[in-house]
Structure formats: structure tokens, C-alpha cells
């Protein structure tokens, strides 16, 4: 019995150890970036354009990233929600629905570099969109479409059936019911899903590198057919090619800004989710 107790203690110590390792490993990166990047966050750095590679600020990069995810969401948001409405409210339980689901799952599994290559071959060259905001945004949209479909689907599915029945009983048509009841009730859930997709798109580098621009552009695009700068590509360029202290400090600053945007989106998403879970007493992913 003593040995059992001893064993239990050793195991517990081991579990403590591994948990601490994982937390330290994850937190040390965040803390390291925050400590080294914090003093770069000045109005000047955030509002000026880069010049001579390693000088200046990252204003076009920040706005460029927002524009890219904006274009991406203009595609993946509506498409994802509409597809989710079809899958939850209309889809018959047959081979067509199964095929649809299979393809959504497949798209989710495709590595981002392949989406990037496809964007290069299809959007940039075949569709003649050039290396541009449009190509980059659409390629990002392709990447996160399955996430928006799935998240919206789960949110709509979590809406109790009684809501719909009540609406139909009042004489509303199916589409009116969906529009005014299901989607309304699922709205916070859908927003959470879209935000999580946004977080994924914001940090994506490989796709943007191949389709949207070289990251160092000091101008903002005036049309969707112009190349656009973005934070992850800027960070890649400045971190791998920079060798002066100016470059390193800017890399820390850019990494911190990127991390902050990412964490803000995630925290925001989880606040919405918690709020929603409390309100409806349902759990969803």
C-alpha cells in the first residue's frame, strides 16, 4: 500500500512537471516577444511607412493585413454562413450532403502552402489577378472557408427547435424563419466562429507571401489589383534578412503587434462565446 501511495506521488510530480513545461514553453514565447517588443510600440512606429528596408514604421503593413482579412472575410463570411444554413436547415440526409461535408472537411485539411501554390497558379496567373490584394484575400478566404462553415453550422444547430416551430406556427415561411429566428439566435455564435477564422487568417504567411506582395510595400493599394503589404510577410522579411539593430527592433515590434491583434481577436471571440453560453445554456465549439 505504501508503494502504491509512493507511486501515486511520483506520478503526480511527473504530471506537475510536464504541465509546467508546456505552460512555460508557451508563455515564455509570448513574454519574450512582449518584453522585447513593448518599447517599439510608439505612435511613430505604428503610423509611418517603412523605408530603406529596415527604417520607418509599419502602418501600411497593419492596414494591409486588415485589408487582406477584410477581403478574405467578404468571401468566406457570407459563403460560410450561407453554406451552413443550407447544411443545417435544408440539406437532405443523403449522398449529396455527405459529399458536401466531405469536401468541407477536405478543404480544412489542406496545408496552407498548397493553398498558396494554388493561389499563384489559379488566381495570379490563370485569372490574371496578379500578385495583389484580391489574390491574397481570396486565397486566405479559401483557407478559412471550412472554419466559417463549421462554426456557423454548430451555432445554428445549437438554436433550440422550439424557436423554429414557434415561428413556423405563426405562419412564417421557412426562409423567414431562418432569417429572423435561427440566424438571429445563432448570431453571436456565428460571430465567434468568424472571429476565430479571422485569427487564423491574420497570422498566415505562406499564402500571403506567394499571392499578395513582398511585405515591404510602403504604399497602400488603391485598388484590389495592387500588391499589398502585410504584417506576417514583413516580419518574415525583416527577421530573416535584417542584420542591424534597427531591423531586429522592428521585427520584435511587428511580432508583438501581430501577436496582440491575434490575441485580441481570440479573447474577443471567447468573451462572445461565454456570454452566449451563459445566455442560452448551450455548449458549442
Amino acid at each position, binding site marked *: 500500500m505504501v508503494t502504491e501511495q509512493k507511486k501515486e506521488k511520483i506520478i503526480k510530480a511527473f504530471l506537475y512537471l510536464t504541465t509546467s513545461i508546456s505552460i512555460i514553453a508557451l508563455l515564455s514565447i509570448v513574454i519574450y516577444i512582449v518584453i522585447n517588443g513593448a518599447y517599439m510600440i510608439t505612435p511613430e512606429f505604428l503610423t509611418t511607412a517603412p523605408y530603406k*528596408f529596415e527604417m520607418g514604421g509599419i*502602418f501600411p503593413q497593419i*492596414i494591409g493585413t*486588415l*485589408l487582406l482579412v*477584410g477581403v478574405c472575410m467578404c468571401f468566406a463570411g457570407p459563403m460560410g454562413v450561407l453554406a451552413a444554413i443550407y447544411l443545417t436547415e435544408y440539406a437532405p440526409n443523403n449522398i449529396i450532403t455527405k459529399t458536401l461535408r466531405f469536401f468541407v472537411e477536405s478543404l480544412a485539411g489542406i496545408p496552407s502552402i498548397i493553398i498558396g501554390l494554388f493561389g499563384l497558379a489559379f488566381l*495570379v*496567373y490563370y485569372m*490574371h*489577378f*496578379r*500578385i495583389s490584394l484580391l489574390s491574397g484575400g481570396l486565397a486566405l478566404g479559401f483557407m478559412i472557408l471550412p472554419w466559417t462553415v463549421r462554426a456557423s453550422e454548430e451555432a445554428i444547430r445549437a438554436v433550440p427547435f422550439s424557436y423554429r416551430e414557434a415561428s413556423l406556427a405563426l405562419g412564417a415561411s421557412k426562409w423567414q424563419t431562418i432569417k429572423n429566428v435561427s440566424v438571429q439566435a445563432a*448570431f*453571436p455564435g456565428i*460571430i465567434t466562429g468568424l472571429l476565430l477564422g479571422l485569427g487564423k487568417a491574420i497570422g498566415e504567411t505562406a499564402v500571403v507571401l506567394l499571392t499578395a*506582395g*513582398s511585405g*515591404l*510595400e*510602403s*504604399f*497602400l*493599394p*488603391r485598388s484590389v489589383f*495592387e*500588391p499589398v503589404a502585410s504584417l506576417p510577410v514583413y516580419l518574415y*522579411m525583416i527577421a*530573416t*534578412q*535584417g*542584420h*542591424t539593430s534597427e531591423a531586429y527592433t522592428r521585427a520584435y515590434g511587428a511580432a508583438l503587434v501581430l501577436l496582440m491583434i491575434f490575441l485580441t481577436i481570440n479573447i474577443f471571440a471567447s468573451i*462572445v462565446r461565454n*456570454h452566449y453560453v451563459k445566455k442560452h445554456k448551450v455548449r458549442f465549439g
Partner: protein
Amino acid sequence: MNKLFAVIIAIILFLTIIGVYSNYSKTPSSGPSGSLNIAGSTTVLPLNQEWARLLMEKYPNLRISVSGGGSGNGIKSVGLEIIDIGAASRDIKEKEFKEYPDLELVTVAKDSVIIAVHPSNPLSDIKMKDIAKIYAGEITNFKDLGGLDMEINLYSREEGSGTRSAFEDIVLKKFDVEIFSKALIKPSNGELRAAVSGDNQGFTYLSIGYLDNSVKALSIDGVEPTIENVKSGDYTVVRSLYLITKSGPSELEGLFIEFALSPEGQTVVDEQGYITVG
């Protein structure tokens, strides 16, 4: 809750729109107008960006967008006519000429390839044949060159790069050797420089435009790799940087290329550390 979202999303959109149009508010004046798209080699990218900036200052109605993507991308895009001017730091390969026979090249600057080591390295001169031996993997230690007893960490650009093919053509082909397997690949000149400036055993070739005091350039067979020596022909490792148009330059494309070749444009070349032409 819904209202809160609407407000936040509206604010983000508003800021974005302001950001985009803040660049717009330039007063139009006379002069050529229209838009030009330039893409291609990352070596030519800083030159193109600077030329575009100066030209747009001169003619505010002009809109020039410049991006990178690599020589392969530049040639393919101009061949497909999805951009107006392509930039390349390597020659057009036979395969590409076959597909797009009416591409026209203009040499707008010249580049030279130097040999760079870490500034703390006491080595200062190297023989051409030793460079070949190092890249062939026959010499692996600086002491064989008369330097310190430490291993050589070799770096190189990737296959297809203009800097690499210039280096191979001018240096390695003479001795019939190839870059050996353990050289680490860095996909840009900036990365080669960053790698060697942070590695005291580093050894690399490098575009002359990227030479600064964070790395040390070796003289080859006693000749210093300076722009004067390149121009006088003493230093022989030279390659061309091109702007490419399809079936002859249009009016706007011509304007850009002429500007690049003008004294003002060539000052930019000089400032960026490349070799002027004409």
C-alpha cells in the same frame, strides 16, 4: 450585444477606408497619367521602388505599383501581360523565350558578386581557385587558406537565383565544380548577409549591393571588390539586372525605363550600391 458588434465593425471599416484614401488626396496636375505594374526579382526591387517613388513625385497623376515575387514570377507575369514591366536578375532561359518570344530586355544596372566573411575573420584575400575548392567542398577549414583553425560554414542562394547563376557562371564553371551539398540555402541576398554577419565561421558569395560594414568583403586574387574596379574591368564577376517588357515598351513603360537609365535614375543605382550603366 449586436449593436456593439455593429459599432466595432463599423469603426474598423471606417479606419480602413480612411487609411486607404489618405494617400489619395493629392492634387492632380498636368503630366503623364495612368498606372504601371512592376514585379519580379527581389534584387531589383529596391531600385524599382526608389525609381517609382521619384517618378511619382515628378508626375503625381502617375500610379506605379511595385512588388517582388522573384525573377521567375516577373518573367512569367510580363509574358502573360498581367503586369507591364518585369524585373529579372538572371537571363531569360531558353524555355521562357520559347513561350514568350517577344520579350524585350533592357539592362538598367549591373551587379557584381563578392565574397563575404564575418568581420572578425582575419582573412582578407582569397584566390579564385580556392573559392571554387571551398564551394566544391574540398576545403572545409579556414586554416587551409592561412586563416584561423575553424570550420567553414558555407551559404548559398537557391537554384534559379540570378546571384547564384552569376557566381556559378563566372567562378565555378571555370574550375568545373558545383556547389556542394552542405551549403545552406538562403532565399535572398539579405538573408545571406544576415547569416554571415551573425556567424563568425560563415562564408558566402553576395550581391555587391548588399555589401555593408556588417560583413567583410575579401579581395579576389588581390583585386578589391570595389565599384571602381568593377567598372575598370579589373574585378570580373559582373552580371546584368534587367527590366523586361512585352513586344516593346509602351509610352508609360518607356517613360519608366528612360527614367531608370537617366542620370537621376542611375544616381539611385549608385546609392543602392550597384554598378551604373551607360
